[in-house]
């Protein structure tokens, strides 16, 4: 996709983005709510018309794509229910009928971990189980490309873990997956490659490790000073960084050379017999990168 744009009246939701996916990879599209993720993914799925740019998905422009193209993709929408009156197995059977060469119904029910619930009505499934049914329904046609729009939003941590296991197992099936999420851990856990969208633009793109290591030398040192000691008394060179990282007595220092900085800090504290409670040194993770990159985005308008 090249120079993708989408405007709603005056509002430009997607302001020219370029992306390329290769077969068999899990690609995570990351961004805050309203950043343009769903708009972008729904253009790729053929649900929405774009305002500008070129888009090719499996060799076809989704805006023109027909039923043959839909045979090759699977979609998990951000929000959609299934007929509450059908059972899990019946839902899968119904959708299997739509495809030329569907996967086995029972095998797909098992893949998403719903074998125990196969004969339960959809109405009786928990939120997490319904989401796994969504994934199963998207997989039943044995697609080459799978779109997952915020598949774990609203899950409790254990349901999220289970959903991740299902998605990770799809990697072994050789599927290409386009995943949107606003959970950093989800992208870090699952994705081969990540793009971060903010304010309708891509602000970073690459494998998660690469994104977190672009700031490799910088670590954050965090600790608390005892009562009565101010950050101003710290040795020069250890001044808290400019975003005033002193709050509730907690000091945060971004250190380009963490070994030296830590040495200076502890020497200073030992000399004065000051305890530095909660002292920790941390490498930036994807969340730090994400927060930094999306910090400047104005409050987004939900679509």
């Amino acid at each position: 996709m090249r120079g993708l744009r989408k405007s709603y009246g005056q509002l430009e939701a997607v302001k020219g983005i370029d992306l390329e996916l290769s077969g068999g990879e899990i690609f995570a599209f990351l961004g805050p709510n309203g950043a343009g993720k769903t708009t972008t993914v729904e253009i790729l799925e053929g649900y929405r018309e774009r305002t500008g740019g070129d888009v090719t998905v499996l060799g076809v422009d989704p805006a023109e794509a027909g039923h043959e193209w839909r045979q090759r993709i699977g979609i998990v929408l951000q929000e959609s229910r299934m007929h509450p009156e059908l059972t899990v197995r019946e839902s899968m059977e119904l959708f299997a009928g739509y495809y030329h060469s569907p996967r086995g119904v029972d095998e797909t029910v098992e893949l998403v971990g719903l074998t125990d619930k196969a004969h339960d009505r959809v109405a009786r499934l928990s939120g997490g189980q319904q989401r796994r049914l969504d994934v199963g329904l998207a997989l039943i046609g044995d697609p080459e490309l799978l779109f997952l729009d915020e598949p774990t939003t609203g899950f409790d941590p254990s349901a999220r873990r289970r959903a991740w296991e299902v998605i990770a197992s799809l990697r072994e099936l050789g599927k290409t997956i386009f995943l949107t999420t606003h959970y950093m851990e989800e992208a870090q856990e699952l994705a081969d490659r990540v793009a971060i969208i903010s304010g309708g633009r891509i602000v970073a793109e690459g494998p998660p490790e690469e994104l977190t290591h672009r700031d490799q030398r910088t670590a954050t040192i965090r600790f608390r000073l005892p009562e009565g000691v101010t950050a101003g008394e710290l040795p020069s060179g250890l001044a808290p960084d400019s975003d005033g990282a002193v709050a509730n007595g907690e000091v945060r220092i971004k250190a380009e050379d963490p070994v030296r900085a830590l040495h200076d800090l502890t020497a200073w504290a030992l000399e004065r017999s000051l305890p530095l409670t909660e002292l920790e040194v941390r490498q930036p993770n994807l969340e730090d990168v994400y927060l930094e990159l999306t910090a400047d985005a104005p409050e987004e308008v939900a679509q």
Partner: protein
Amino acid sequence: MTGAALALHQFRFDQKTFWRNPASVFFTVAFPVMFLVIFDLVFGNGNRLHLQGVSVGVSTYYVPAIITLAVISATFQNLAMSVTIDREFGILKRGRGTPLPDWVFFAGRIGNSLVVSLVMLVLLAAIGRIAYGVAIPWDRLPAVLVTLAVGAFTFCCLGLALTGFIPSQSAAAPITNIAIFPLYFLSGVFIPESEIPNGVLNVADAFPVRHFFDAFFAAWVSGAGSAGFEWVDLAIVAAWGIAGFLVALRTFKWTPQAA
């Protein structure tokens, strides 16, 4: 699967969905039966009516009247409500992401409404025969079935057309019922038209319910020797159906509309 096999596949699941939904079974199946029994209880008493130049007992009048209501309920009300709810649930949007052709989706739903209409025809005719001794017009069966088919087609199209004007799930039942219930009263379905002022009947003539009822009544009870086809009424009903079809083509929405 071929198109026809796929439509049959879709229809089978639409049937399951319909019969397992307590609300649709109650409003589409139990409601008309209840109306038939209650109206007969209240107005029966062996009274006779003069309708379309025929003298009929009140019980005989209510069988075709309530079948008319049941067909409209199985088509118009059922589709307008269930399709709107499915649209707002995102069920239609999900289906659109699959290779399911649009016409198969509609064929399944319309086929379901048609079969439910036939079930109601048989059920209400049987209750009329057994409980009230109302004859089943075997000799005019072709007219009964053709009239039912034309009415069912029209009220399916109108129900689908209406969904485009229903903004949310919670608006589905009130809008659908406000659109149809007054017409049951004005069109001689709940109250015999001999009890309704002419001015009101003229208003009712502008809408399809009265024409459908008149045609169905003629098919059910018209005098001996008549085949029971009311072609003018059927043509007006069919014209409404075609209009509904054209409106539905332009206004039907597949994605949730409520914010």
